[in-house]
């Protein structure tokens, strides 16, 4: 029997770095580890910069996680604790402390992705989520129905059609060639229908504390059931939580969300958070033609002009823009704040956001025949 080939001793720290990345939830394949070793050999390496460049090129961390990747690199190869300014702090004795501190720092950096740092007056509170049975059945039904209830648009990809389509010349000719010139009937094609993007923006400020848990449960069901959905939280900063909501188990997903959001129950700066969303090209592109649902009471602590401007920018991109506010549960509700009055002309819907059932009912009706954005004309008038 052949003995398994063993790695050269010098390769051990490199492979251990790949293992550390895997532990930190970087998806690293064996082929990437092999490429990393080859890259290091090709580069010499003549400096630690070469080692870092080789790691970054072959493991390819996404821009969201580049800082975290760099921290892990410094932790592994330098034994560094807080950052590059502290210098190299090697030595096995200090490694345990360094691990904890850098892991904490890495977690902090992960929280920052997609948004800006919050101010000191934020209330940072980790959340616990109860395994609430109530409404679970309704949410699972909502998730099942979601796929065929969301609004759709015509994709540029075409699919074969049985009737009422355009002539598919390519397929017709192909059939003609195969049947030696004898074609029973022309082949047809039609544009494939794909779900519109669904963008959910959840206000997690102190005034919305009662509703946040329900909103996140709905968000989880949406991420599980929709083809293209993005979810962000708005508080004193903007945080993308779509990735955290990916696990199928709601409990697991909500726990991940509770760790990646740092501004629970703090103040509200909706305007600057939405401004950050619109100013990020990939998120602004996602909002184009999307059904956008903002779950908020609209009580802006920042400048209401900033909020109006940001909502107007979103409205211009959106297929349909909706504000769901728990205040609308009151039949006497009238928008009274300057911010709410300012954004009213560009909203397509202002709905009751006080319960899971009212939200799910509205979302499931988004794709119903005849359900179109009512305010399109009004928005254009506003823009002029």
């Amino acid at each position, binding site marked *: 029997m052949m003995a398994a080939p063993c790695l050269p001793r010098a390769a051990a720290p490199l492979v251990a770095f790949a293992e550390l990345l895997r532990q930190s939830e970087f998806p690293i394949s064996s082929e990437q580890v092999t490429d990393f070793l080859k890259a290091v050999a090709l580069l010499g390496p003549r400096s630690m910069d070469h080692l870092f460049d080789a790691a970054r090129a072959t*493991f390819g961390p996404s821009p969201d996680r580049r800082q975290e990747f760099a921290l892990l690199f410094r932790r592994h190869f330098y034994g560094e604790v807080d950052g590059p300014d502290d210098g190299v702090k090697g030595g096995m004795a200090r490694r345990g402390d360094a691990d904890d501190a850098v892991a904490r720092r890495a977690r902090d950096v992960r929280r920052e992705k997609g948004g800006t740092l919050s101010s000191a007056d934020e209330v940072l509170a980790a959340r616990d989520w109860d395994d609430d049975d109530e409404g679970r059945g309704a949410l699972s039904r909502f998730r099942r129905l979601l796929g065929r209830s969301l609004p759709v648009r015509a994709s540029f990809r075409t699919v074969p059609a049985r009737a009422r389509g355009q002539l598919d010349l390519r397929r017709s000719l192909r059939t*003609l*060639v195969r049947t030696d010139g004898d074609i029973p009937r022309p082949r047809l094609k039609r544009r494939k229908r794909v779900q519109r993007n669904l963008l959910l923006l959840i206000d997690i400020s102190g005034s919305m504390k009662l509703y946040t848990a329900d909103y996140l449960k709905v968000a989880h069901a949406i991420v599980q059931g929709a083809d293209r959905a993005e979810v962000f939280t708005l508080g004193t900063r903007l945080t993308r939580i779509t990735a955290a909501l990916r696990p199928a188990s709601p409990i697991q997903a909500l726990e991940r969300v509770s760790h990646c959001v740092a501004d629970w129950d703090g103040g509200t700066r909706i305007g600057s958070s939405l401004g950050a969303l*619109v100013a990020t*090209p990939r998120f602004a592109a996602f909002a184009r033609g999307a059904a956008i649902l903002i779950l908020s009471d609209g009580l802006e602590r920042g400048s209401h002009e900033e909020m109006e401007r940001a909502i107007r920018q979103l409205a211009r991109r959106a297929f349909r823009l909706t504000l769901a506010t728990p205040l609308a549960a009151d039949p006497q509700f009238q928008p009274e704040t300057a911010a709410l009055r300012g954004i009213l002309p560009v909203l397509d819907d202002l709905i009751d956001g006080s319960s899971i059932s009212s939200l799910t009912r509205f979302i499931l009706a988004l794709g119903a025949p005849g359900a179109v954005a009512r305010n399109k004309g009004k928005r254009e008038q506003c823009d002029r």
Partner: protein
Amino acid sequence: MRLEAAPDEGVAARAVSPERIAAELASVSYIADQSLATVIFLALRLGKPVLLEGAPGVGKTEAAKAIAQILGRDLVRLQCYEGIDAAQALYEWNYQRQLLAIRQAGEKDVDIYDDRFLIARPLLKVLKAPQDSVLVVDEIDRADHEFEALLLEFLSDFQISIPERGTLCATSRPVVVLTSNRTRDLAEALRRRCVYHYIEYPDAAREAAIIMLQAGDVAEATARAVARAVRDIRARPLAKPPGIAEAIEWANAATVLEKGGSPWPEAFRRAIGMLVKDEEDLATLGPELGDIVEAALS
């Protein structure tokens, strides 16, 4: 059949070190930082595709063109869009010619699946002559997931399966560059197959150097001022932050206006349409533009 990972000799001769790659790129007017030069060096030596991500206008496609130039190869570009499929990317049969051939042949046998009837699209073109071309799969994030899946076979084994002909395999590893504006996340399977680099906007000094290299008749002081102002403008929450190409156009346009009699700050202000191409952004910048330009010129 699986390809050897080693690149062909021509590529290996060019890719001696990251520093040499950077120097060669500079010789074709592309200024790359050390990280990008290292990534290109590794991709060429490991025989892997390069995935370049970054905001629009940072020079991703230009990097691919520069690679083709330094290797002395043709650039084969596949521009992605939603709905792109195998017929546009891989190959297509020329059905009209096939039908004509069948008619002409009459009772005789005719092979309607030989090369005469095969229209090679970019991926097949590169597969047939990997040593003569550099393939750019541009803006892969615009394509849908189905197309990404289609690319996987090509990028891992550099082979294409044609049902009527069997599997065609490249004789050597082609040089492939994928670019993405990151409007959506690409599949992990695709990222894993590539050597990855995220191109940031250049710092002011490097951008000034790029402007001087690319723009025709721009003075050094103007290039530096443009680089500083553009950096300041990019830091603002704009819907469409200006890219390097826009900065070059702005520098050129302001220089033309200045030569036509507009004094400096005014020339920059009047040429702003070359830099900022969005109505909302112009409205946002309008009140502050004068200060930005003054600060950049001082």
